[in-house]
Every structure is written in structure tokens, then in C-alpha cells.
């Protein structure tokens, strides 16, 4: 039985380039007992292009969807895409804090938006609403080889007044979610560093440089894969990795997974189900060692039993020594 | 009902621990109860207990120095709690006989129903009715229809503090959100309507100060600034302005203290809805400080304390 229900706005990327994000997110939500209901007749959120042209118009694009969700009586909307999220949050804040702006926007809409929808990123609902305990509870498989650098991108947590989620400079939600799965996470300094975003086309050199930094910092941090929560980040880091290698003379071969894919793997879904084959840099070798959690625990316990004998004895001896002196 | 008998028994038991017990006896006609101060147990036979016993007897407590027993209803008990909050009485010197109450009657409302005829006889039946006999016949009225306004939203039919409880506690069956419904409705009127309303009401005021003197929380009594020259807040002129000012003084001094017992309104010979102003302030106190008067002896009256950061008070923009 579903414990929670959200209106699910997948957005355009998840219909195309980030299909695997959509697939894996839906599967993970199913495991966690969360119902996702897609609003009927949703439309473009406006994304970056709209608000660079006209704020009222941009808000109207987002608010049209919010108005649809408002009618669904679910209350909370979730979207995996940080761009969509920002568009919704900005429209909502603008319209609830400024009555005149609200009227302007609603003028453009068939159905007015009254401000009754809360928008949250998929990461936020997993981290805050589902909770780490539940996340850990559902784990069926261990991923012993993964060393993950969690990469949040620039707008998941910023600007803080709008995002209202996690620490804007050093976010930890994704790190904690992945840790809760039992997967190793590496402390990573460039969690929110810019990847170049949509400038991949007009300013390729700049994106190469920025993406290079993000990738090399992950490698320096000792990670062997990167977890992301943004379709555009994924695209820059994964699809353009070869391009970066060529331009910067590097030889990165670091898979870039959606964090939901890692969750899916830990919850026992097959790589095929999770559309792992859509990744450009293959994660195949890293996830080969996936092993059911029970087996993994048994193995570890055996190892520990063997290893711990000696140090324990040493510790006891030391304690006795201090007593004497 | 047997409550009267039980009260009598209880009173007999608490003597001589107390010197006086304040309860009710029949007043000058069948429709009126009047306060009854008992000083020897034998007097108890004249005690009455029925829905005529509307008056809030606790008003007498702060001025009595000796140990007293007192009969209180749920609403009256809030006064005692407010006294305790403000340190106005010594709990050890009061023996509280609490009586759960299903509603009292408003003499004014009954008189309106019977056309202000002199009353020959009054009886209460078992179905919650009052039967009033006059020269012109008999009238049966549901108590719920002739109760004071406070009873219609009563949240505390059972006393919140007592030493002896008569009968079984009763739970309120009135929705909490209705308590300030009348205030919200009145507030929705236009400023002009409200101003005109109060001017019409206050114009009748004869400054007899019955509202003030009957008010259990009007602790100044003889020192009330309505009558002093030092300070000289209002004159003895009978202008509307002075009457308005007097009622604002009354309201302001009861801010966060009014226990909504309705005495001020009950005693007003001019039928002025004096309690309304105080109820409005109470509604704001609830909203601003989540404070309700007379329910918790450990609360602090909101006007005599503060928070460095007030959650509900926002700076006003011009």
C-alpha cells in the first residue's frame, strides 16, 4: 500500500536524454512505497530560456503546471530535474509573496494558480520524506566496489532562499542517501561546482574546462564513479567525457550514474531494468561485484572475526597497564 | 437534581475548617438567585442550586481575608485560576466546591421571552426547560434558548480547579472554534458600522460602574482611574467621549486577564454588551500569544511578560 503520494513532473529531459533517470526513479519509488501520479496535460516548465526573456511569461509556464497539480489535491509536486524545480519554486514564491505579480501571471492562465502546491526535488522527498531508515531497510544488494563522489550541481541547493533545501555550499543529502545504501561515499570538494550547464553548445571550450575540473576533483577524491541528480550535469560529465579527454589531454573513464540508479542497484533491480546501458561511460565493471546483502554480511563477518582477534587482545593489555601505573 | 443536597452535605463537612461559605439562595423573586454567605452550617438549608445560579461568586474572594468555602461552576473556576496566576488569592485559604454545569439562565433573556411580566413561580423540569409562571400564564423555555451567550460556547463545564467535585465531570460539547465566532462576525463589519454600533451602545451608559464592580478581575475597585483626579484620565461629564474612554480603560486593563465570565454584561442595567470588547482582546491574545485566560495557574498574563522574539508580532509597514 502506498504510504505517500506525489504529483510527478518528469520534465522534458526525462522523456529523452535522461530516460534512465525516469526509469530508475520510478522503480525506486515503487520499492519505497511511494505513489507517483503524473499530472495530465503537463507542459514545458519554461526552464532557462523563458526567464531570460520575461519573468511573468516564465512564471506562467510553470504556474500552468502548478495549477493542474493544485486541482489534483495532492499538495506536493516532485520533479527529478533541478531546472524544472527552480522554475516551479520561483513561480510559486513570486506569486505567493507578491499579489500583483500573481494577478499578472494568472491573467495569462486559463485556470489560476492559488499557491497551494509545494514543489520538492526527488532527492528531497527521498531524503526528507522517505528518510534514511526506510532507504536502508529496503537494501537487498551490496555494491562493494563503488566509491562515489556525489555531485549536486549548481541549482539543486541554490540560491538558498529559493531552494530551501540542504546546505548551499556543502550539501550532504545525496551523500547520506548513498551511504544509507551501504555504498562508500568520498568527501568531494566540488559538489556544487558549475559543470557548464547548457553552454556545451555555444561555449564548448569553457564547458570542457569546467567539466574537467569536476571530473578530476572526483578522481582526486578517490572516487571511481560520480552520482548525479541533474540530467544536464549527467550529460556534461558523461556524454562529454571523451570530448574533455581530447580537449584537455586527459584520460577519464569514470562512470556518471543517477543516484536513483545506484539506489536501484542496491534494491536488486537489474542493470537492464535501470537502463544502465544508456550511460556513455559504462559502469559495468564496477557493478559486476554486486552481491546479495546477506552473503556480503556473512563474508564481512568472517573477515572481521579473523582480523579482530589480535588487536582486541592488545587493547586489553594496554588498559591493564594504565591501571598499574 | 441531587446536586443541591450534595453541595449541602459537602458544606456541612467543611465547617469549621472554613469560616464562611459563599453559595446561592433564592433572591427577591422566583427568577433571581442571590449570593448567600453562610457562617454556621445550619444555614445551609436555604441554599439553592439550579440554573438561576448564574452569578460568578468568586468576585468576592480577593477581598475576604479569612478562609472561605465557595461554590463554583466551570466558568467561575477560570477566575480562580486567573487569581492564582496573578497572585491575588491564597489557594490555601479557599475551599472550592466545584459543580459541573450544563448551563445557567440569563434573567434578561427570560424576561424578554415573558414580556417583562412579574414572575409568580419558576420551576425547572427534567428536560432542560425552565417553566415560568406569570399572571398571564405559563411559559416553558428551553434553557439552551435563554442561557447567557457564554454558555453557548462553553468549553469548561466542569471546574478546572476544585477541592470537592459534586457529581460527575461533564465534557464540553461545544466546538472550540466557535468560541470567538461572534467576534469574527462583528469584526467583519465596516469601520463605520462598528463605530456607530459602539456609539449607540455606550451612549446609554450611566457610569454606574456595575460592570466594573461586578468584574472579578477589576482589582482596582476604589482606586479606579475612572473616578480619580490623580491621574485625571476622564472627567465626570456624561459625554459619549468620556463613556467611550471609560470602557476602553476597562477593556485595556483586562487585556489578557478577562476570564469571560460575563458578569459585566449580566449586571449592566442598561443592557450594554460590555463583554464584547474584552472578548475581542482575548481572541487576539489567543492568536498572538496562544494564551487563554484562567486555564492554567502557571501561565503568565501576556501583558506582564514578553518574548525577546515575538513569533506572531510582525513589524508594521507604512
Amino acid at each position, binding site marked *: 500500500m502506498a504510504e505517500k503520494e506525489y504529483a510527478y513532473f518528469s520534465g522534458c529531459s526525462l522523456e529523452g536524454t535522461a530516460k534512465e533517470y525516469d526509469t530508475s526513479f520510478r522503480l525506486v519509488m515503487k520499492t519505497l512505497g511511494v505513489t507517483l501520479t503524473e499530472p495530465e496535460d503537463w507542459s514545458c516548465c519554461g526552464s532557462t530560456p523563458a526567464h531570460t526573456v520575461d519573468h511573468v511569461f516564465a512564471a506562467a509556464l510553470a504556474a500552468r503546471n502548478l495549477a493542474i497539480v493544485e486541482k489534483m489535491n495532492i499538495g506536493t509536486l516532485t520533479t527529478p530535474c533541478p531546472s524544472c524545480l527552480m522554475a516551479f519554486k520561483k513561480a510559486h514564491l513570486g506569486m505567493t509573496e507578491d499579489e500583483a505579480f500573481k494577478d499578472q501571471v494568472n491573467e495569462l492562465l486559463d485556470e489560476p494558480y492559488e499557491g497551494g502546491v509545494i514543489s520538492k526535488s526527488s532527492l528531497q522527498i527521498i531524503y526528507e520524506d522517505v528518510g534514511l531508515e526506510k532507504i536502508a531497510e529496503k537494501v537487498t544488494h551490496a555494491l562493494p566496489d563503488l566509491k562515489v563522489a556525489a555531485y549536486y550541481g549548481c541549482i539543486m541547493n541554490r540560491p538558498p532562499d529559493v531552494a530551501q533545501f540542504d546546505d548551499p555550499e556543502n550539501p550532504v543529502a545525496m551523500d547520506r542517501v548513498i551511504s544509507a545504501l551501504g555504498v562508500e561515499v568520498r568527501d568531494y570538494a566540488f559538489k556544487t561546482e558549475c559543470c557548464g550547464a547548457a553552454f556545451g553548445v555555444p561555449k564548448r571550450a569553457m564547458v570542457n574546462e569546467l567539466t574537467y575540473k569536476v571530473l578530476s576533483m572526483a578522481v582526486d577524491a578517490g572516487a571511481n564513479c560520480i552520482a548525479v541528480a541533474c540530467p544536464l550535469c549527467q550529460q556534461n560529465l558523461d556524454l562529454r567525457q571523451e570530448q574533455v579527454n581530447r580537449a584537455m589531454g586527459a584520460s577519464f573513464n569514470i562512470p556518471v550514474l543517477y543516484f536513483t540508479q545506484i539506489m536501484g542497484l542496491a534494491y536488486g533491480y537489474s542493470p537492464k531494468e535501470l537502463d544502465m546501458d544508456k550511460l556513455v561511460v559504462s559502469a559495468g565493471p564496477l557493478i559486476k561485484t554486486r552481491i546479495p546483502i546477506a552473503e556480503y554480511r556473512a563474508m564481512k563477518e568472517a573477515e572481521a572475526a579473523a582480523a579482530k582477534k589480535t588487536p582486541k587482545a592488545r587493547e586489553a593489555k594496554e588498559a591493564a597497564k594504565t591501571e598499574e601505573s | 437534581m441531587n446536586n443541591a443536597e450534595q453541595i449541602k452535605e459537602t458544606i456541612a463537612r467543611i465547617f469549621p475548617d472554613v469560616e464562611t461559605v459563599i453559595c446561592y439562595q433564592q433572591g427577591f423573586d422566583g427568577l433571581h*438567585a442571590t449570593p448567600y454567605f453562610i457562617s454556621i452550617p445550619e444555614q445551609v438549608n436555604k441554599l439553592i442550586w439550579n440554573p438561576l445560579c448564574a452569578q460568578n461568586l468568586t468576585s468576592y474572594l480577593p477581598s475576604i481575608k479569612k478562609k472561605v468555602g465557595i461554590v463554583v461552576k466551570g466558568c467561575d473556576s477560570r477566575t480562580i485560576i486567573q487569581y492564582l496566576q496573578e497572585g491575588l488569592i491564597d489557594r490555601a485559604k479557599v475551599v472550592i466546591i466545584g459543580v459541573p454545569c450544563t448551563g445557567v439562565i440569563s434573567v434578561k433573556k427570560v424576561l424578554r421571552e415573558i414580556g417583562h411580566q412579574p414572575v409568580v413561580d419558576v420551576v425547572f423540569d427534567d428536560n432542560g426547560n425552565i417553566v415560568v409562571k406569570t399572571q398571564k400564564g405559563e411559559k416553558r423555555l428551553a434553557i439552551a434558548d435563554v442561557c447567557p451567550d457564554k454558555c453557548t460556547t462553553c468549553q469548561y463545564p466542569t471546574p478546572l480547579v476544585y477541592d470537592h467535585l459534586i457529581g460527575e465531570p461533564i465534557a464540553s460539547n461545544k466546538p472550540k472554534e466557535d468560541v470567538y465566532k461572534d467576534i469574527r462576525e462583528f469584526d467583519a463589519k465596516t469601520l463605520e458600522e462598528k463605530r456607530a454600533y459602539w456609539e449607540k451602545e455606550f451612549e446609554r451608559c450611566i457610569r454606574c460602574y456595575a460592570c466594573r*464592580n461586578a468584574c472579578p478581575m477589576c482589582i482596582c475597585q476604589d482606586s479606579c482611574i475612572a473616578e480619580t483626579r490623580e491621574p485625571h484620565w476622564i472627567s*465626570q461629564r456624561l459625554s459619549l467621549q468620556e463613556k467611550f474612554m471609560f470602557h476602553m480603560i476597562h477593556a485595556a486593563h483586562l487585556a489578557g486577564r478577562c476570564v469571560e465570565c460575563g458578569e459585566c454584561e449580566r449586571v449592566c442595567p442598561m443592557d450594554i454588551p460590555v463583554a464584547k470588547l474584552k472578548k475581542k482582546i482575548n481572541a487576539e491574545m489567543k492568536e498572538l500569544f496562544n494564551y487563554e485566560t484562567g486555564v492554567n495557574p502557571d501561565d503568565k498574563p501576556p501583558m506582564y511578560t514578553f518574548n525577546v522574539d515575538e513569533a506572531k508580532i510582525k513589524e508594521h509597514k507604512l
Partner: protein
Amino acid sequence: MSDTGYLPKEKIKDFLKELAKDAVVYAPCLEGDIVLFRPFSEERTLCLDRPANTPPKSVIYPQSETLFAFQYKKAPEDHQKMSVELKADIGVPNMVIFGARPCDAKGFRIYDRVFIETNTPDPYYRKRRENTLIVTLSCAAPSPGCFCVAVGGGPAHKEGSDVMMTELEGGYVIEPVTEKGRAILGKHVIEDGKPYLKDAQHVQAKAHDEVRNPFAPDELPKISQSLFNFDGFWEQVVGKCVSCGACTYLCPTCYCFNITDEQGIGSGERVRSWDACMFFHFTLEASGHNPRPTKFQRFKNRVGHKFIYYPEKYEGVIACCGCGRCIRYCPVNVDISEIVNYLKDTHQELHWASSRKEGTQPTVGSTKDE
């Protein structure tokens, strides 16, 4: 012209309109649920079926009146020289009090002795009194708490009235009491009342029998001085009094007042306003001392004034008209007739005296039964 008039009920408004031609007519009008004397006009609702909540006393003796206004004047050439200019205005229109009850009208007689029948008559009161015609309506039945017959009055007592009306089924029988009142009979809506006079007298007599007399019949109450001066008595009988002024301000015979100067920077007024002996401030002296600091002493004064001091000064006239308002509207139902009853009864006195001797608390409740 007959000595008796008759006013058919349907013509009562015409009658009032006619009176209003050359006078301000104060009549008992319904306001919300209460009845007050108001300057009568078409849009008001006349209410004659019960006594007004307040007596009409403020018509002749306003609750607050400006005795005079004063203004400081500086000499234009020398600002050190200052004079005070006084302005008093006692211009009063002709007034009619219509629908007062006999007790209300009798109240004015109590005032007359104080304000007019003295060496220094009060011009403000006298002027109003002289300019006012009092048209009284006799009571067909007693009101809750009233006891006029016990204090020298009655439901058709004529003292203080200029005209006495008595209600019959179809109209009012009008009996002039004074010369001033006789003029009423000339009003054109007034018919000959002779045929109805007998009926009216019957109604009056019947009403008289119905009014309660808490004291001994056919005799004015006599107060026992010793009990009157016993503090314990007052502490017992008025313990419940809240010391407000409802009784005095609603009383047709209470006339105590206060005089204050209300001053701004350059001008001001001398104001006379009702005061009440039930208030602490009534006897508060400038020094801070108060000879009557407790409500017991103050209540004692109220009873004393009405039943001892006033009668002593004015040939035994009791300054209480028995209207019952102080009982009806008392917040705590203090019953002055009950208290006076204790005071006059010699048997009671013995009881109180004995309880005083024994040092026990006298007990009102139980004695009342005996």
C-alpha cells in the same frame, strides 16, 4: 369643560405630537430590550406596559450639567493682568415628561424640598422643574420588587404629578392634578373622561391591593437606632453588595452630586454631576482620609439617608418611593425592603442584640424564617 379627560389609545401619537408643538416631550421608548425616557419622535417605539428602566429624573436633574463656563482673559496691553469671564446658560425649553409612573413623579417632590423649598434654591433645577409638565401613568399592576404602598405612595398616588392617566382597555382616563396639568384637557384629541372615571378608580384600587407591603400595613417603617448603628448587622446584610452605583443612579429619589472644574489651558467648565454614596470616592477627603471607607458604612448611609435623615429633616417624609428598581437591577439582588424590614422589627432587634452579646454571628437567613 369636564374635570376628567379621555384619550383613546389610537390617538396617543397625535396627543404626543400635539404636546411636542411647544415642548420637548420625553416619553418611555423601547431601546433594544430596555425602556428609556427619550425625546419622543415618530421613529421611536413608545413603551407604556412596564415602568422604564431608568426614572425620568435626568430630564429635570441631568446626570451631568455645565453650571457655567469660564475663560481666562489677559489684558491686551498688559499680559500680567488677567481676568476670568464666566458664562452661565440656564435657558431651558418647555418640557413634558410623559408616561412617568407615580413613584417617579413622587421622586421629584423629594428633590423639590432640597433644591427649591430652601433659602438658597438651585436655579438650574428650579428652572427645569418649572418648565416641565409631568404626565403620569398609574400602574395597573405591580412590577417585580416594587413596594410603593409601604412608603407612603401607591400605584395611583398623585404627589408630584401634574396629570394622572389611568389605562383602560380602549384608552386612558386623564385626571389633572395641578393647574398646570389642567391645560391638557384642552388638547383637541382629549375627549370627555367622565364616563370612564369609575372604571379608572376601580383599576387604581385593584392595583393598590396587589402591591406588596413588606412592612406593617398602614404605617411607615420606623427604624431601630441601635440595630442601625450595629456594624455587624450591615456586614451581614450587605456582604454581597458590590458597591456599584446602579441603585442610586436608577433611583428616582437619590440626588447626591459632585462638582468638578474641568479645565483646559485657557478655559474650562464647572460641572455638576450625579454622585453616589455607594462609591468610595463619594466621601474621600483631600487628605486621603475617608470617613466611609467600607461598603457597609456606605450602604448604611444609603438606608439612613432615605429612612432616617431625610424624614428627620422633612417632616417624616421617607426618601424612598418604592419603585423597586434598586432591587430589580441590583447586580446581586440586594433588597432594601428586606433590610429595612429587619431594621424596623423590634423582635428582630432583640435577636440581633442577643447574638451581639453572645458574640456569635447573627444569621440573617435563619431569622427570616422565624
